[in-house]
């Protein structure tokens, strides 16, 4: 599947800033494959990201792009969706960006449930700043800062998302491209805030969680699992040996934020200027005769 072409490909001379062997390359292919599979129009798609190596992904996808600040992809994505709900918005960022710097936005994006696909490249380490612990680093991992080894329990994004009733929660492993593409395609098609955490090996700074490690410590979600059962999904999210891969949770019943707050179909940039009649009405309560 390495030579597939998509409408989302950048010119061949594009300089990609990722290391050889990085899981991001596989994930990028899976994202583009999923976008193609879903029949997304590149001119109706905005790729949004924060900062970090993962957050460079939109730079390598031929579509609209908002590559904003570290940790702030989700608020920007919200603003874009509220200004134009005809756009498909996909957020791609890393574990540090989404679960550390942007943790508060992660909680509140799920609470709002606006239509967005959130793909988190989870390599359990900070790559671009050279190897410090991330919120998902395993305990015991030694780093230049955590010299005695990481002491804090890792953040569990799936359990948090399910606790907040995120309507679509899934996990994949970048090394399994077919699974990753299938899950991301399902997430893009899902109407609502879809969270996809993807294990992505960092071949330079994470010597613990390698391709081999992920293969040995993950297993597909059991076929018997009912993704509409929230408690079962939560139990799955707490499971660690092996770490399940697949769709944990789906809730079709949550209202979309855009509908709750009655966002019009017409994008804000097409809105005509306010009418004089409406302005007169607004001034009415101040008129004293």
């Amino acid at each position, binding site marked *: 599947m390495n030579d597939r072409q998509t409408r989302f490909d950048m010119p061949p001379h594009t300089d990609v*800033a990722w290391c050889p062997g990085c899981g991001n390359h596989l994930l990028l292919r899976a994202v583009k494959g999923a976008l193609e599979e879903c029949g997304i129009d*590149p*001119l*109706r798609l*905005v790729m*949004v990201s924060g*900062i970090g190596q993962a957050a*460079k992904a939109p*730079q390598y996808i*031929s*579509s*609209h*792009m*908002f*590559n*904003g*600040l570290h940790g*702030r992809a*989700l*608020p*920007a*994505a*919200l*603003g*874009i969706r*509220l*200004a*134009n709900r*005809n*756009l498909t918005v996909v957020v791609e960022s890393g574990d540090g960006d989404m679960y550390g710097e942007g943790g*508060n*936005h992660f*909680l*509140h994006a799920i609470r709002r449930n606006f239509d967005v696909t959130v793909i988190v490249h989870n390599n359990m380490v900070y790559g671009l700043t050279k190897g410090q612990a991330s919120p998902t680093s395993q305990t015991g991992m030694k780093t230049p800062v955590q010299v005695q080894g990481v002491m804090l329990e890792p953040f569990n994004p799936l359990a948090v998302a399910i606790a907040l009733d995120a309507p679509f929660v899934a996990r994949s492993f970048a090394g399994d491209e077919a699974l990753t593409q299938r899950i991301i395609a399902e997430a893009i098609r899902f109407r609502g805030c879809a969270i996809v955490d993807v294990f992505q090996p960092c071949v330079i700074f994470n010597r613990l969680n390698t391709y081999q490690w992920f293969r040995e410590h993950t297993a597909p979600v059991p076929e018997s699992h009912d993704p509409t059962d929230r408690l079962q999904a939560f139990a799955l999210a707490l499971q660690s040996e092996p770490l399940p891969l697949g769709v944990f949770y789906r809730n079709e019943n949550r209202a979309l934020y855009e509908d709750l*707050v009655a*966002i*019009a179909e017409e*994008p*804000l*940039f*097409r*809105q005509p*200027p*306010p009418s*004089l009649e*409406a*302005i*007169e*009405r*607004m*001034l009415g309560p*101040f*008129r*004293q*005769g």
Partner: protein
Amino acid sequence: MQDLSMVFEGAAGQGVQTITRLLLPALKRSGLEVFACTEFMSRIRGGSNSTEIRVASIPRRAYLKRIDLLFALSTRARENLGERIGSGTLVFADPAECPLFPEGTCIAAPVRTLALQAGSPVYSNTVVAGMVFGLLGLPPEPLQESVGRAFSLKGEDIAESNRHAAMLGYDWGGSCPAGERLALPEVQPKEAGELMIMDGISALGVGTVAAGCNFISSYPMSPSTGLLTWLARQAGDFGIVVDQAEDEIAAVNAGLGASYAGARAVVTTSGGGFDLMQEGLSLAGIMELPLVVHLGQRPGPATGMPTRTEQGDLGLVVHAGHGEFPRAVFAPGTHEELATLAGHAFGVAARFQMPAFILTDQFLLDAETTVDADALRRLYPVDGVTETGDAYRRYAFTPDGLSPRGVPGFGSGVVRADSHEHTEEGLITERFELRHRMMEKRLGRLRTLREEALMPTAIGPVGDARTLLVGWGSNRGVIEEALELLGEPAIAGLHFPQVFPLNPAVATLIGDRRVVVLENNATGQFADLLLPETGIRAARRILKATGEPFSVEEVLEALQEEVRP
């Protein structure tokens, strides 16, 4: 008598603002000019808050320390306002609520008794409004009209009880001998034009809506929250998207996401909240996104005094955000300017594709007065977005540094916005030469921005003056009034509605005259800006950072030092 100063004091939750709501239109309808300003404590119930209503024959918009008539409705009135009570102050207090004062002339006013007579203690504020009208010897009809308008929506019973309460107060006031001591300013008969009374935040809100603003994402913070609630109230009629953000960082980033997608976006906040937005401001700078930021100032640092007033954040907004990028800062001085400069800020942000600030403060936002309705109706054309073509480049180099602004979903081009230094296409780059050109592109617009910057408003005969009293933002009213009372032709005033960047013509206008800068802060932030922006050095700074606005009296006193030999 030039003017009369009345103060109404009560605890939070006592509804003293009802008195203002009834009296302002009623007094205006009686032919008088009115201005009200408010001071209040950071609490929901209790404490001591007060509203000053000034009644004059000509428009006034400044805080006067002197109190001619005080209605003390809480037990803490004396503690709060004691030092403003002089021998000329006529104090009215209800012995049922508040012990009588030894200072001034204190008169027992049976507010509660009359309210009960009208049916309930909730009519107390209406009784007070009636007492004032009676004491001033004004015909009751304009007050009755106010009462009718204010309570008509609450049902005929309630409206009728309030009319009754007003008349009970009116009769008591009319028969109170102390009323003879209250001389009203002479009323000059005027054309009964359109009458509109508005607080500052509503004026700002009207201007924001008229400018075509259709997106706000903000986190509540005094004294700026009113713009968020105002736009929420207008959202249905004008198709405005309103989002209460989880924090100010989310607010500014959502605003920028919306602006990228073509919305006319605003965020409203105060100093502390804006601190959190600074990285976002810098993002607006590199992405060349229009964004209007309303910053309602209150005293800092940190939490400071949340409900009080100050002009302490000018330096903050001028220097906010890392890196170098253009911006404009507007500082309205009147209610009309709150509306017109809001419109102007949207126009400037859109045209120059950058952030524009509206810098206000608690004093101006909470002040209420009559406004010129025509100023509020002006519509501000906001530069639209352009349809993109196949070869569209968001940051294409142009002679003036401004690239056509495309948005996603409009045209056949791809629109990329990047927080990194970027190519014309909006993709990450580390090429030094390109970086240099992009910096020139973004900063180059500062030249036009300066040349088109709003000139200061002249107060008095500026041409002949030897000394210029310079102010900005909410101090316009106090400068106008103090200079008028001073009556010294050698001193005139300049009020800056735009405080950054400054027009190069300002240096010529001021020349080598003595410059005295008046600011509601501790260090003289505008005076510090005047030197690098215009080369003009302030000879003197009149400063105040107590949490209160300048009073007319203290500015007059400070100016008298300028005329003494």
